[in-house]
C-alpha cells in the first residue's frame, strides 16, 4: 500500500527522463561501390571506407541508416542532396562523425585530417552557391 502511493510520483519522475535513445551498433564494413555522377573520386573513396559501413540501405544500424543512407543519397534529387550535404558539413564541423562510441571499438575508423578536409570541402561546396 505504501509503495502504491509512490507510484504516481515515480511515474512523473520517469516521464521526465523519457527520451528516445538508441545504442549505436558496431558492425563490420561491407564494401559496396558507391556510384554517383557528381561525387569526386576522392570523396567517394573516403565515403566507402569510412561512412558507408553504417550509412547504407541494408545497415543494421538503424540510426545511422535513418540519418544518412548513401544509396538513397545517390538517387535523390538535387535539393535533397544539397540539404544532406549541408547536414554532413555541420556534423563534420562538430566532430560528431564517426561517433566516439564507434571509434572506441574501431579506432582505425577515424577520419584522417586530410580525409576530413576533403569531405568538409565537398559537403560545404554548395553553400557558396557553386555547382
Amino acid at each position, binding site marked *: 500500500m505504501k509503495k502504491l*502511493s*509512490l507510484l504516481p510520483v515515480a511515474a*512523473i*519522475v520517469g516521464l521526465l527522463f*523519457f527520451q528516445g535513445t538508441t545504442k549505436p551498433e558496431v558492425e563490420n564494413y561491407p564494401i559496396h561501390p558507391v556510384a554517383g555522377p557528381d561525387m569526386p573520386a576522392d570523396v567517394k573513396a573516403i565515403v566507402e571506407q569510412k561512412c558507408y559501413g553504417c550509412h547504407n540501405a541494408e545497415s543494421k544500424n538503424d540510426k545511422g541508416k535513418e540519418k544518412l543512407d548513401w544509396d538513397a543519397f545517390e538517387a535523390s534529387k*538535387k535539393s535533397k542532396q*544539397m*540539404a544532406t550535404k*549541408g547536414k554532413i558539413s555541420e556534423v563534420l564541423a562538430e566532430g560528431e562523425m564517426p561517433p566516439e562510441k564507434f571509434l572506441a571499438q574501431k579506432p582505425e575508423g577515424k577520419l584522417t585530417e586530410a580525409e576530413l578536409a576533403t569531405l568538409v570541402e565537398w559537403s560545404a561546396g554548395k553553400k557558396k552557391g557553386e555547382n
Partner: protein
Amino acid sequence: MQRRYWLLGGSALLFLAIQFVPNELPPVVMNNPDDLIQSGIVREEISSLLKVSCYNCHSNETEYPWYSYVAPSSWLVAKDVREAREELNFSNWQTYDMMEKLEKLDDISIEVDAEKMPLGIYTLIHTWAKLDETQRQLIVDWAEETMDVVVEEGEEDVGENE
C-alpha cells in the same frame, strides 16, 4: 500506518517545494513578421495542419496548458518547447538562409514520414495533433516540393548578385 502518512506528507511537501524551483517557459509572441504562415507562402490545407500539429512547440505561438505552470511537468514543457524552437521555429522562417531552410524542410519530411513528429508524448495528451496517413503524406509532399522552390529561389538570388 504511521509510516504511510509520513510518506504521503513527505511527497506532498516535496511537491510543494519543487514549485519554487525557477523555471522559465519560452515567451509567447503572436505577431511574427518572419513567420512561415503569416508571410502567406503556404497554402491553407498545409498551414492548418502545421498550426494544429507543429506550431505549439515549433513557433512563438505556444498555447501553454495549465500543467505547464505546475512542476515537474512545467520543466518538461519548458525544455521541450525551448529545444523545439531552437531546432525549428516557424515564426522565424524568413530569417533562415537557403541552406537552413533546406535542412529544416528535409528534417520535416524525414521526421514526419517516420512518425517521429509530432512526438508521441505530445500526442498522448494533445490527441487532436496526431497526424493520420493522409495528413502525414501532405506534409511530407509539401516539404519536398518546398525544398525545390527554395533551391530555385536561392539560385535566382545568386544570379542576381553576379
